[in-house]
């Protein structure tokens, strides 16, 4: 693992004590500094104001309303602290939030299923990406978005491999990250990316978070 130049400071919002403890353990054991925890949305906002961390990891559904309190609290905190990374945990497989989160830019946002926390390498990779201004969307959620039945169009012209690459782009992965996943060379990935963006008629050559936005906007029905 690459050495992190500066320890990433995290606030965790999760109302179920055992799971909160689990998240904190996973983060601490992976070298992150958990500077605060909260069990409900108002408390989460207070912790975020007090600590001004690099990242907030929050359960979407939290007290007091148990609807999308965690999501609203995190976005509210980000409005007063631009650059705050927001990684949301969800119990449900809902591609809708992904489209909402990237509505005004895909920088420093993430949305993963709660159980990913137990897949430690994948989870900490997502934490690191979001904390440093990148994007991390859950593979299952992106699969739902890519696999959604739609009108015949340029997507049908992608090869199986190109679809895999498209999906990994939408998850927020970099070319080296994609290469690692697919066990191919980075230049092979670059080749696929060029083809995909040509076929879908999207502008290529942007930073990772810009191309996530382009791809997700394309996938939006």
């Amino acid at each position: 693992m690459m050495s992190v130049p500066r320890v990433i400071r995290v606030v965790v919002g999760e109302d179920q004590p055992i799971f909160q403890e689990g998240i904190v353990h996973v983060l601490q054991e992976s070298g992150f500094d958990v500077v605060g925890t909260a069990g409900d949305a108002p408390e989460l906002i207070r912790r975020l104001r007090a600590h001004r961390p690099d990242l907030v990891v929050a359960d979407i559904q939290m007290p007091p309303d148990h609807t999308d309190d965690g999501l609203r609290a995190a976005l509210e905190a980000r409005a007063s602290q631009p650059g705050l990374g927001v990684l949301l945990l969800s119990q449900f497989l809902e591609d809708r939030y992904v489209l909402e989160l990237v509505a005004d830019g895909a920088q420093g946002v993430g949305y993963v299923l709660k159980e990913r926390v137990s897949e430690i390498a994948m989870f900490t990779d997502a934490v690191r990406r979001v904390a440093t201004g990148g994007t991390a969307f859950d593979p299952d959620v992106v699969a739902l978005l890519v696999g959604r039945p739609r009108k015949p169009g340029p997507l049908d012209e992608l090869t199986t491999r190109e679809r895999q690459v498209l999906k990994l782009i939408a998850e927020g992965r970099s070319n080296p990250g994609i290469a690692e996943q697919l066990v191919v060379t980075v230049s092979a990935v670059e080749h696929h990316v060029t083809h995909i963006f040509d076929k879908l008629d999207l502008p290529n050559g942007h930073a990772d978070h810009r191309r996530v936005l382009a791809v997700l906007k394309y996938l939006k029905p």
Partner: protein
Amino acid sequence: MTETPLATTAAVDTYAFLSSVLAGIAQPVWVVDPAGEIRFTNPAAIAALGYDDAAELEGKPSHETIHYKHPDGTPYPVEDCSMLRPRRTGETIHSDEDWFVRRDGTMFPVEYWSAPIQTPTGRGAVVAFTDIEERRRLAQMTRERDIAEARATEARAGQRRIIEAGDAARARLARDLHDGAQQQFLNTLLHLRRTEQKWTTEPEQAKDLVGRAVGEAQSGIEGLRELAAGIHPAILTTRGLAAALYVLTGRLPFRVELDLAQIPLPPAVEASVYFFCSEALTNVTKHAKADVARVTTVMEDGHLTIQISDNGIGAASNPAAGGFAALTDRMAALDGTLEVTTTPSRGTTLTARLPLAPGPTNQG
């Protein structure tokens, strides 16, 4: 007119005789002469037609005075009038329902008999009529009561079906939990217990068991997630009907076009509409073999119309009536209606219409 004095005298006698016979009879009666003019009315007829005195009617043309218009106000031409036909043909006419005009222009429904009668000036007609307004009102009340009773019976049956469907859903839920998550977490526990035993003696096998425990726990979580989404998707509460339908339709094996009116709905109605669509789309998945479906909602005249159409094989060839009954019950519970149109190989369209109390809107 060339009437002999004898005839006139005879006429006076005839009508005087009729008058003495019919004066005390409750049945309204009047007599029309060959020219169509009223020659005699009894007190019951005078009262029913809204007059004070026989003199106000006698000598007046019958049709033009009490029978000149239809209930909708359009003119009733004398040529079309069968009431006075007995004068010419000698037949007897009966009508279950016609309308007479009172002096003040208002109308009332009548049943009448019109029979030929020999008058001093030739063949006229005697008309006996009954005001049937009250009878009609009672019949209407009976009809309304019958309809209400039929509706109540249907509603009770619908409620019973809803309760039965709820019970069946709970039973299914218990079975799903038992066969799914419960089993998987039990397996997880067993694998972990065995791992505990083999930890030092057979570390390779222990490692394999941990892997299997993780797999079981993961599918347990997935199962619970699917189950929860089926019971009441969280996104319906947080983001409303359109978002929930978007998520729902993303998992279906066919494309669904959503064209939804932007109206805030009361939460209970929104949930009902969601489950209605969910059930209808499940029907499409199971039976229709469609590759595209369309969900449209329109708000108009205080009613929400939900239309779900597909381009599948049409339900006529398969008895999916059970599904439609459940959908009909769902709508009936909201005082709504459901119409199903289906054509073999041309798809099925469900049109549900339900009344909505005016909700909070930001328009105008």
